[in-house]
């Protein structure tokens, strides 16, 4: 079990954003959280990452309790988590190499190993020619690959992705979905992916979690969730 969340609550100004969620994620899974805007998806990810502490409930990552009873026990940098943000958050003042190197250096990994890992990762993401470019000089798709590479190079226990492809046009979206899948399978990494797009959810997930108003409505594989959604009293767009 990589991630174990039990009875997680989080409110902002007394309004619940996440309202009693329990979710367990196994090693190597690709779990996609699907839900409408404002249902608490980002809040959930940020609690796993450690930027927000839950008001109630327990979060365990790789056997280590990281948050319990409204307190965050482990700082984000010690949770072994990778994250790709919706707006990517590439550091504008660092080159591609610098963006990938930062985390490794913070973890005191020696220079020659750092360079080896950076080169490997850039080969995997086909970004070697852009090693010395700055993020501002890259196209949207290339920036996306660097954001992914920056998260993966730390060999995280789990990769969190918060609508990473929602700013792209549909062709690039499809292409990068494929690349994400390939990389995930090659590295065997565990992935928790957030989206409000059903198509994206079904094409990526081994398991889909449907969220609404801070609650989990349904967990299942693509077929089960499709069925669930079509049987909703009012078949609203999620």
């Amino acid at each position, binding site marked *: 079990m990589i991630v174990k969340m039990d009875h997680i609550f989080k409110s902002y100004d007394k309004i619940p954003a996440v309202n009693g969620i329990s979710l367990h994620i196994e090693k190597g899974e690709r779990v996609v959280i699907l839900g409408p805007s404002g249902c608490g998806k980002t809040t959930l990810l940020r609690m796993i990452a450690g930027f927000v502490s839950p008001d109630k409930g327990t979060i365990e990552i790789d056997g280590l309790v990281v948050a319990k009873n409204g307190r965050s026990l482990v*700082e984000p*940098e010690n949770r072994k*988590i990778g994250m790709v943000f919706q707006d990517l*958050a590439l550091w504008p*003042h660092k080159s591609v190499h610098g963006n990938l190197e930062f*985390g490794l250096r913070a973890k005191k990994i020696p220079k020659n190993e750092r360079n080896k890992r950076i080169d490997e990762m850039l080969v995997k993401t086909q970004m070697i020619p852009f090693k010395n470019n700055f993020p501002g000089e890259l196209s949207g798709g290339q920036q996306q690959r660097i954001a992914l590479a920056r998260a993966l190079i730390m060999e995280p226990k789990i990769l969190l992705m918060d609508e990473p492809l929602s700013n792209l046009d549909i062709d690039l979206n499809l292409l990068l979905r494929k690349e994400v899948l390939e990389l995930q399978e090659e590295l065997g990494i565990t992935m928790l992916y957030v989206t409000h797009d059903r198509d994206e959810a079904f094409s990526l997930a081994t398991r889909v979690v449907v969220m609404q108003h801070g609650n989990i409505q349904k967990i299942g594989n693509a077929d089960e969730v499709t069925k669930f959604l079509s049987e909703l009293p009012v078949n609203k767009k999620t």
Partner: protein
Amino acid sequence: MARKITLWVAILLLLLIGLAPVISMFAKSLFVAGELSLGNYETLFQSEREWILLSNSFLLAGSVTFITLLLGVPLGTLFSKTDLPFKKIFIILFVIPLIIPSYILATAWFYFLGRSGIVAQILGANVGIFTSRFLFGFSGVLFVMVSTLLPIVIILVMTYLRMVNPKLEEAAKLSATWPVVLREISIPIIIPGICLAGLIVFILTLGEIGVPSSLRFDVFPVESFIQFSAFYNFNAATAAAIPLGVITLIILIIERLFLRKKVFQFRVTKDPMIIIPLGEKKPLFFAAVATLAFIIAIIPLCVLLIKSLSISAYHEALTRSIDSIFRSLLYAAIGATCLTVLGFFLGYLLERKAFRFTYAVDSIAILLFALPGTVIGIGLISLWNTRATNMIYASVAIIIFGYIAQYTALGERIMAATFSQIPRSMEEAAQIVGVGWFRRLFGILIPLAKRGIASIWLVGFIFCLRDLGITMMVYPPAHDTLPVRIFTLMANSPEEVIAALCMILILITLLPLSALSLIIKNKRQKI
């Protein structure tokens, strides 16, 4: 058409009141006895003294910049990004030295550390000799200038840090501790802001005369003031003012060429900024910041308060200067009003890019803001001191012109920021249905911008009120303002009277400042 004319009038006013004096001064300095000659400059640079003064000026400006950045960057970071307790009170304390005339700060320190100051009275005359040696000269000027200009760095660092996309820091926090994130991500991203702060501090120190002359450290701008006021040698004064103008110009050009390009794309995000918990180190940081605030703000304020603590001192202070107190308030109010009107239109021009040469107008305003007050003062005298224009030269108008010349950039930039919040479409919607410029102006723009307008007025008021550099150069007889009166009384008045005068000046400056902080607070709540 009406709009065009209004904007043109604003531009012409800036050129006439601000730029023309500086150009006229430069032109006149090139003539000796009616003939084109570099004579004035030759005499200036032949004397070794001028070179020493110039190098003193650079040494001082460089050291002040270095130390304010060294202190201001960590302080700004602590105030904007951490859960340090009592942040707001600390910020106010650090800002106070900026809004009161800097030589008053120097005076307060003199009363504290001088040969027969408070410290000497408590710890003995020997200590007094030692502290007064520290105060008079380079170290004392450095210390007072740092405490005056530190808030500029603190405020700019805070503003820029607030604009950094918090996701950039979160992404780094996934693998690094907060100190590393700040050192490698947040601070490097705001380097343009830090450079800007350093530049402003450097330029302001370079032009400062109040503190160096009261603490007797010879710097270049004092020279042109002395040439003018002590020897009535106008040519020499002008020649001494020009190098400062040229240096300022060079620094600004460097800024335009290099710093501008380095500006990173800031995102104005709605994501809340992460507040870093200081944890166990909180008491340590608190103690350090409190100590600094105590030294920089509380000691000088208390010194003035204690020194002046008698009714007779205030009575004496008021009888000696009640006229200049009222004049100060009146002139600052007139100045602030002019700055508001001019700033309104120039800010509109800058934000809406109404003319092609908008940026040239902005550059002129910024140059004038950066020029030392003495330089502008000499320029004004050189342009207006003729028989035909004596009406202006011998009246309050010359002081107001000085305020406009020096501080228009403030109003322009504040208004430009305000207009950037008002969608162009609001004005266009009225234009389409045929509402004329003046109707639009009074019906739409002014009501929508009223907070910005109130802010410029108050900022303008504070700056005019504390002005010493220009006023001291240009004030006609019987037109002196309170800062000038204090400066001239200083030599031969009892210390408690001077202290009382300083307290009065501080109090009347604090009034608009508190009004300003109320406006800013309301604005935050509205958003």
